[in-house]
Structures are given as C-alpha cells and as structure tokens.
C-alpha cells in the first residue's frame, strides 16, 4: 500500500513537471510532444495509486447522520459489511479492467501520439485495485476478529 501510494505521488510529480515543460516550451514555440498522453495516463496511476491508502486512512465518505442512533455492535457490523462490500467492488473493478485489457491488446489500443499501450495502464489499475481489495479484506478480518479498526488508530495518530 505504501508502494502504491508512492507510485501515485510520483505520478503527480511527473504530472506537474510535464505540464510545466509543455507550457514553457509552447511559449517558445516547441511544446512537449505527447504531453496530453502523459498527463492522462499519469492521472490513471495517481488516482488508483491513492486508492489503497485512501481506505487505510478511512477516506471513504459515508453519511454518518444516523451513526449515534445505532448501537456500537450495529455500527461495527456495518463497518464489516462496508469493508467487505468495498473489497468485492474493487475485485470486480480489477476483473472488469483485466478483461478490458485483453480487448485493448486485441484491438491494438494505445495513446494517440506516444503510442503507450492502453493495456499497461489497465493492468496497473487492476493491480492497484487488488491491493485495495486486499486491504479492505484485512480490515474486515481485523474488525470481526478483534474489533481493531486501523482507521481509528490512524485518525488518532494524525
């Protein structure tokens, strides 16, 4: 998870550098070739690179209006269900994207200028999704076995 977040942060750094080179270069009449390809594909890496850490940090937003009305046991049960549901959703996303990647290879899909194969980024996205799903499964297991919630511990650390 730390690794995927670091890759995501690297993606963001690349994004800033590419845009700056492009903007300054264009001013002098030589924009960066394929900058848009780099920016959009870098975006894929950074968005999904942050996914696993997002769950770890308790970043997924829920409507907590009724939380005080539920008993602690009910709230814990909901937390476990949410984590499991999240894990299933991310496994589905991983599988769906993996299947699409096969199609991308069959259709020879790539970015328009730099010809970066689309399947590379789909595989990356699928891998990040699996890491995210595993993190959620781990959290569901911790919650049901010991009642330990990694998200609360993180929140008090901050």
């Amino acid at each position, binding site marked *: 998870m730390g690794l995927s*977040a670091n890759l995501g942060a690297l993606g963001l750094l690349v994004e800033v550098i590419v845009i700056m080179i492009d903007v300054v270069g264009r001013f002098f009449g030589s924009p960066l070739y394929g900058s848009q390809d780099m920016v959009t594909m870098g975006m894929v890496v950074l968005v999904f690179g942050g996914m696993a850490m997002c769950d770890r940090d308790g970043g997924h*937003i829920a409507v907590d209006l009724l939380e005080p009305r539920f008993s602690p046991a009910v709230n814990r049960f909901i937390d476990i269900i949410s984590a499991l549901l999240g894990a299933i959703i991310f496994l589905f996303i991983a599988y769906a994207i993996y299947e699409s990647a096969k199609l991308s290879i069959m259709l020879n899909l790539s970015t328009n200028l730099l010809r970066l194969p689309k399947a590379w980024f789909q595989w990356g996205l699928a891998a990040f999704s699996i890491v995210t799903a595993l993190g959620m499964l781990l959290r569901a297991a911790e919650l049901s076995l010991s009642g330990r919630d990694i998200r609360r511990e993180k*929140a008090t650390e901050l």
Partner: protein
Amino acid sequence: MSVEVTGFIGLATLLVLLAIRIPVAFAMFLVGFVGICALKGWNAAMSLLSSETFTLASSSELVVVPLFILMGNVATATGMSRQLYTAAYAMIGHVRGGLASATVVGCGGFAALSGSSVASALTMGKVSLSEMERFKYDQRLSTGVVAAGGTLGILIPPSTGFVIFAILTEQSIGRLFLAGVFPGLLLLMMFVLTVWIICWIKPELGPRGPRSSGAERLRALTGALPILLVIVVTIGGIYGGLFSPVEAAGVGAALVVIYGIVTRTLSFAAFWHSARSSIVTTATVMLILSGAHMINPFLALSHVPAFVGGALVALDLPVLVILALMLLMYLILGCFLEGFAMLVLTLPIFFPVVLQLGIDPIWFGVLVVLTLEMGLISPPVGINVFIVKSVAPKVALGDIFRGVTPFWFAMLFTLIVLIAFPQVSLFLPNTMFN
C-alpha cells in the same frame, strides 16, 4: 416489472444504503452495477464498470483535481495559507465572522480560475479550514462556508456547468458566461450576508479579533504577497493566453513548490507528504465521481428521468408554474445525482418545452446551474459536502450538512430573486452581444 419501477427501486435502495452508513461511493457502485445488470445484462454492467472507472481516471479535465489539491497542500505546508489568513485577519478579523466572509470572497476569486465546484471546494478547503480553526471559528460555519462557497466555481466564469449546458442546448457559451457574472456576484454577497447574520445571532461561531493597526496590516499584507502573486500569475496566465485553465492548476502547484524550495520552507519529506496526501484525497473524490457515473447509465436505461419529465410536461399549467416545477425537479434529482449527469439526463426532455413556452434559454441556463449548485450541497448525495468532508475528516458529515443549510437558503433566496428579475442574468449578455 417495467423498467421505470426498477429505476425507482434502485433509487430507494440507494437511500437506504446511504442511511445505514455504507460509504457513498460503494452504495452508488452497488446500485448502479446491479441496476445495469437487471436492465441490460451482466456484460453491459462489467463493460461500464471498466470503461467508466478508466475514462474518469484518464480524464484530461479532472487532472485539475489532484493538481489543485497539491497546490493547497503545499501552500499550507510552506505557510503561505497561514500568511494569507493572517493578512485577512489583520484586515477584517475585528468584524464578526470576518474570516468566513473573506473565505467566501476567496472562493469567488478562485471561481474565476476554476470551472469546477469540486476543485474550488477542495482547494479552498485545504487552504482555509485549518486557518479558520486557528482563529477559533466554529467548524460548522467554516466547513459550511467552503462547501457553499465552492459552488461559486460553476456560476462565475469559466464554468464547466455552462459549457455542458451550452453544448447540450446549442446556446452560446459566451452569453452564458456573461449571464453568470451578476448572479455569481449576487450569490457571493448573499453568502457574505449569511455569514454576517449567523455571527450576529451567534457571535461565538466567528469570534471577533482585535482591530489591527495600520503598520500591522501592512506587515501582514506583505507577508501574504507570495501567495497573492501566485494567484495573480495563475489567473493572469489563463486570460493572457499563456496556459489553459487545466494547465493553470499545474502551474499554480509548480509555483508554490518552487516558492517552498527557494525560501527553504518546503523539505523533500514535506513535499512528498503533501503529494501522497493529495493523491489520497483525489482517490476519495474520483471514486465518488465514478460511482455517480455508474448511477447515470442505470437511470438512463430505466427511463426514470424521461418518465418524470414527460409527466411534468403533460401538465397544462402557467409558464412560471412549469418553470418552478422543473426547477423543483432539479432540486429533488440534485439530492441524488451529480450535477452534470443530471443535465445530460434531463435537458433533452425539458429544453424543447422551455423553447416552446418562450422561456429565455440563457436565463433558464442560469437558473438551472444555480439549482444544480444547490443539489451539490443538499443531502443525501451532496458532492461538495463530501469534498469538504474529505479535507476535514474530523468533522462529522452531519455537522457539515447543518453548517451549509443557511447557505442553501441563501441560494434559494437568490434563485427567487433571479426568477423575479430576469434582467440580473440577462443584462450583461444582452448589452455585450447586441
């Protein structure tokens, strides 16, 4: 079972899932996926699951989201946000709720830079929330101000909302942008007035500070020069044709990072922490948007918007009543749907009626965009409130919704003013274009 019934069951299920605290994005993915499965089959649902997540994550417009968050994070890490709010405090800290009003004005300024409400709320939230906390402002007030102020992003040009409206209805983008200027300023003033009234009733929410001397003000303003300069350069670069609004986010982020390196206020560790925190916030936001994109095809396949719109149009009522009913529909749909999805689903049904009834399309566009903004802050699916929650994890979502309520009423009041006085919207486009 008719497809419409499936659609309504899906919406009801979404409500229940949200009420029992299932994370918003997960609930939308679940309802959207199962709904598409029911209406169009497994293959279609899997296809949309993969294409909507990938398309959104590779969107060249949403690049502004991580970049603006990075800009906000680094501005905070280097102390630039603090300098900005120290200056604002020196200027108007002695006024009740002065910093909250300053934040509204800041949101208005940022709206001239950004076409999206999400980016506005994120960046302003990053910059302003901890600062208002520093000066003992109540968190309901501060988060409410940011969630509401962020919506100025799509009323004050440039605006992605108006661009989508223009393309869906074949109206002039230029006219719509101009039509948004006065309503945007009016709404901004209403927000400031709302802050003032809140703090007049409950002064402890936005406590007064001491009045600063002229020398203190000058010193504070000088301290805020770097961040003011970054903002001026970024806005100036867009209007001067040096870079696009999307690239402006990258330039702004680069400028604050360069400032941090030059002044040695940003270590590599602090930069990396800011970058990681930016992508985590981005992930939160993008997952919610992806979920909204799964609900959109589900509702389209269920024909629910067409059904509701058709029923409305069939009523034989006076023009103003139909207009009010259409806006009411946007208010209700806005409780569930992301704003742009709503435009796509409803305009094809409503817009021909609008033309037929002789309602000015530009005026209608302003009213619709303002109503969409109200949807962005109304429960249960209030995207802007979720955005603020993602930058203020410690504040309960309920508190943010409560904090934003007075501003919702300010928007409602503004909407009524705009309906009563179409000139407010139409004066500028009609004089500039004719």
